[in-house]
């Protein structure tokens, strides 16, 4: 039983970490984590929608 972690996963947009449980050469369980947070949903609350697209399209 071994657990491996691949971080960063490259050739994707964004930041990703994958952990996998290996048992007899087979992946028996796996976990993914997005390792970056900006909080656009928090920032957008209460903003004037006429200007919000300038931020929302830049996610």
């Amino acid at each position: 039983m071994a657990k491996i972690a691949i971080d960063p996963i490259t050739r994707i947009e964004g930041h990703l970490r994958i952990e996998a449980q290996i048992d007899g050469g087979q992946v028996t369980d796996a976990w993914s984590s997005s390792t970056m947070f900006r909080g656009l949903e928090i920032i957008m609350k209460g903003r004037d929608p006429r200007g919000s697209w300038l931020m929302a399209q830049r996610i």
Partner: protein
Amino acid sequence: MVDHPDGTLMDALVRKGVTRRDFLKFCSVMAGTLALPASMVPKVAHALETATRPPLVWLEFQDCAGCTESLLRANQPTVAELVLDVLSLNYHETIMAPSGAQAEKSLEDTVNAGGYLTVVEGSIPTGENGIYCCIGGRTAVDILQEVASNTAAIIAVGACATYGGWPSTPPNPTEAKGVHEIVSGVPIVSMSGCPYNVDNLTATVVHYLTFNKLPDMDDLGRPLFAYGRRIHDNCERRGHFDAGEFVREWGDEGHRNGWCLYQMGCKGPITFHNCPTIRWNQGTNWPVGGGHGCIGCSQPNFWENPAYETTGIFEVTPPQTFPPTEEGGISPAGAGAIGAAAGVAAGVAGAVAVRQITKESE
């Protein structure tokens, strides 16, 4: 500059089948972009022929990969040449082959060797000890500080790396910051814009290779060759501004005729960038050319300027002496005489307008 096992940049380009003629053409374009006189082309060419390929580390933190997309739109040189030959791109999460520990080893080896250039894309979160962005189990702050400790220079690209970008907008949940607020003691050049323009990055690298220093910068750390003039100064629709010919409504006759977008909220008069001359997508077009006003993306906190409200500089009142062009007939001779008078009036109005804008924004 460290020695590179693959030889000089010119060697690398020759291997890729780049002819001397194409190479000199590229040098001329770069000299032009950098606002250097034609007499400097041989110096640029000599520097590029003899320079070793600078290793480059590209760090992505709180980013959207939009600036990476901009990098991949490079055509001077083509993206393959830029990535594989002109720059020795040792680390870039979005496009590098290795993942995980192997990727991090590439970074570690480059940092230990020193003499590399660093590009930073995305803001750096400092809240909660930096946990809002971790790569390989380390925080963005840690990674940036380590990479900065041995780099020749940092090029911050895009609104987030230069000013903190929208992640730093109140209430700034992750306490995001720009590179300048994290790193000191290292030359930093800011290539703002959302995204930045890759041709300006290429030109900055060429400047660095030719003169062994970063280009002259403004008070926001932006290179003057790219950010020294307002969009408005070089806009192809400027003639319509001076003549009082404005788009008043989307799709109206003025819009169809390509008139000035100032009244529709164009931020060209308060925005410093070379978009009108360098353009985007291999020089194909730019936002104003596409019929939308400039949103001012190279200025700090540009999203706080309501996109469709005028910049509030002044309301232009067109002179009354223009020849009637829409209704009623006018003889060609009469139009000529009135046109000449209007030309003088418009010229004066334009000069006054420029002075007012200058005064307003200083």
